[in-house]
């Protein structure tokens, strides 16, 4: 029997150290954790490295000012270079799964078909993924959140869609004994959220995996057609600065699982640019937001964050981005940041927070032939911060405007007294009849309207052709025998739905290829 592994922090290793294992997994989010658990289940010796810290319910305190710096990339302030898109992305043991809003969708069939038809992806279909999803759904207790437990915030979307005859659905969530608190985004105090932090990571540690938290992998040790391992700077858990200790982990196989921004960055730092494809085709489901003043309190921070959705506008025909409608939880610090204006008007807006409902439109990027998305590039190689460029183009703004109009109609249908778009210069709409004119007159340019993302995909696209993709249909890096990328970065397009379950499924499916290469 393999003895249990350990979960170590950045101060637990005091001198430069080299360790050996079968498989090195870089990153502990939805991709890395599922992969690692499957590999340990096959008896492989796995070492996992995670740049973020090990935070658990013991330290979760529900405070935004503590949680964003601890649990999110760049303290919750990650953004595109021009600051036009706010990027919410996890950075901790468990990655995004520790802080996401629990929404679980399987990959839509039409997206998998598109990958097969347009990107040459082979062997990945609903039928192939189904048993993996079933196992994951069982393990993570993924189930529809009942309508009777839906919070007032989501009820606005639910009711508004109902009154307008728009399609609507109940969100499936990965929770067990959930108390409907609403703090999923800041770390669950009950371990009710079935994140990787409390499920598959400890499962794998029980089977012998060792996790190094606060380990920032700086480069892959690249040889000829092979990668020998990785080299990481250990970070101080308190200050997040390098301790000066280097950790080297050598393995028969290396899996890069850092997500759609950090995985391409690591490959680039290691001199692997995939014929110029690494960092390209970066998609982020650009999100626009409408906020509504409701007659009764909705307490938008309270209750399961996402329980209603609408696919009514997910497919809008050729040349147009479809959008999925959902509801975000809103707390004061994030509200102050994304709600527009400053001074008196801004404060007056925030005083209505308990009555403020927000709806989001998640735009499905990457499907149209001319939609190549954004680009991840390095700045100075010594920097951990990377360059994130995502040009917003006319087709984005067409979708943003259409989405803001529809969200306003839904909010008014649900009884809103006033609706506000999140333009930098505030736009307030007092009645339904004004929606179209107000949105047509508003400026639609980068930096003039708040755009955000919590879903990052692409950057290491999988595909059949090494000239246009980074990894093959087994997630192996083209031209390398033992290097894999297993996370949302391999998606050749965005999904049109929240990505965690797609990443779980693809990682679980891909674990067979990584295992075979590690034998």
């Amino acid at each position, binding site marked *: 029997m393999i003895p249990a592994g*350990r979960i*170590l922090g950045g101060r637990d290793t005091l001198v430069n150290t080299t360790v050996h294992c079968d498989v090195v997994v870089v990153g502990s989010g939805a991709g890395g954790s599922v992969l690692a658990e499957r590999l340990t289940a096959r008896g492989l010796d796995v070492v996992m490295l995670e740049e973020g810290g090990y935070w658990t319910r013991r330290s979760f*305190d529900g405070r935004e000012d503590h949680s964003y710096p601890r649990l999110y990339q760049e*303290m919750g302030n990650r953004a595109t270079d021009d600051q*036009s898109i706010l990027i919410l992305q996890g950075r901790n043991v468990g990655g995004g799964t520790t802080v996401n809003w629990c929404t679980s969708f399987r990959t839509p069939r039409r997206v998998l078909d598109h990958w097969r038809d347009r990107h040459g992806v082979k062997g990945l279909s609903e039928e192939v993924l189904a048993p993996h999803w079933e196992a994951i759904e069982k393990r993570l207790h993924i189930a529809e959140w009942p309508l009777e437990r839906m919070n007032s915030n989501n009820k606005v979307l639910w009711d508004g869609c109902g009154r307008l005859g728009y399609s609507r659905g109940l969100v499936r969530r990965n929770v067990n004994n959930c108390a409907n*608190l609403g703090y999923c985004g800041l770390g669950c105090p009950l371990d009710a959220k079935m994140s990787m932090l409390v499920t598959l990571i400890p499962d794998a540690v029980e089977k012998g995996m060792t996790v190094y938290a606060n380990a920032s992998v700086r480069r892959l040790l690249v040889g000829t057609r092979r990668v020998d391992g990785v080299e990481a700077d250990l970070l101080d858990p308190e200050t997040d600065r390098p301790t000066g200790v280097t950790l080297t982990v050598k393995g028969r196989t290396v899996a890069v699982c850092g997500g759609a921004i950090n995985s391409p960055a690591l490959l680039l730092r290691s001199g692997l640019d995939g014929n110029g494809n690494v960092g390209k085709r970066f998609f982020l489901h650009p999100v626009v937001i409408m906020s509504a003043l409701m007659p009764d309190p909705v307490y938008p921070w309270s209750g399961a964050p996402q329980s209603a959705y609408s696919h009514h506008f997910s497919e809008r025909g050729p040349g147009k981005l479809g959008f999925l409608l959902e509801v975000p939880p809103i707390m004061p610090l994030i509200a102050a940041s994304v709600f527009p204006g400053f001074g008196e008007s801004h404060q007056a807006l925030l005083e209505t927070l308990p009555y403020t409902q927000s709806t989001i439109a998640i735009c499905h990027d990457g499907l149209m032939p001319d939609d190549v998305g954004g680009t991840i590039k390095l700045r100075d190689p010594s920097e951990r911060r990377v*360059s994130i460029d995502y040009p917003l183009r006319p087709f984005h703004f067409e979708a943003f405007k259409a989405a803001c109009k529809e969200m306003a109609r839904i909010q008014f249908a649900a009884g809103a007294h006033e609706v506000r778009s999140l333009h930098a210069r505030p*736009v307030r709409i*007092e009645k339904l009849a004004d929606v179209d004119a107000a949105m047509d*007159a508003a400026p639609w340019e980068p930096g003039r309207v708040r755009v955000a993302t919590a879903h990052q995909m692409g950057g290491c696209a999988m595909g059949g052709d090494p000239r246009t993709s980074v990894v093959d249909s087994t997630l192996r890096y083209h031209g390398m025998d033992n290097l894999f990328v297993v996370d949302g970065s391999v998606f050749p397009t965005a999904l049109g739905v929240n990505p965690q379950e797609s990443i779980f499924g693809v990682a679980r499916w891909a674990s067979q290829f990584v295992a075979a290469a590690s034998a």
Partner: protein
Amino acid sequence: MDVPHPEPAPAGLSRRSLVKRGLLGGALLAAGGAGFLALRGGTVVALPADGLLVFTPAQFAVLDAVSRRMVRPRKGWPTVDQVGVARAADRIAARVEASAQKELQQLLGLFENGLAGFLFGGRTRPFTRLDGAEQDRVLSEWRDSSIALRRTGYAALRTLVIAGYYQSPTVWPSTGYDGPPAIFGLGPTFPEWRGGDEPRPDGNGVWHGEPLP
């Protein structure tokens, strides 16, 4: 209904040419920290008793001035002095990477600078020397500018100052927010499992069902 009027963009000033790399990038921003445009003649404000970690006193004065326009004295709201907004912003900046710190410093320089102000908006006095209404106008000019770089700068500066104020739990009641549920108070009583010889504590995340395929 309050609808802003779009303004025309001047020729030759595109996002591509101005935002080349970094948070703000480009020569224009670098000019904010350059000698001939160095901060001069700005207002002097009292510094935090425990000093500054990132910003110079002149940069701190700009942050302080911006914070007083971003957050106005209002019944039921703590003041910027009670929260210590500019100090908090300095502490937030202390945790970002050195290159991002430098960009923030340059941004504050450009924002304050009289010559840059003249080029952008026809003012020659430093931002900290303007009265409140003029400062609001300058903030709005950056926000609504046809030059993408200025909108980027506004977003970065606003984010920093807003974070400096709204990070404080003393602001929660002003927004009607009742704070995290009491259950979070139990946090320190829970074990933190780190593997090794310690058995994994039971909990919601432990699988008790049949082995999964």
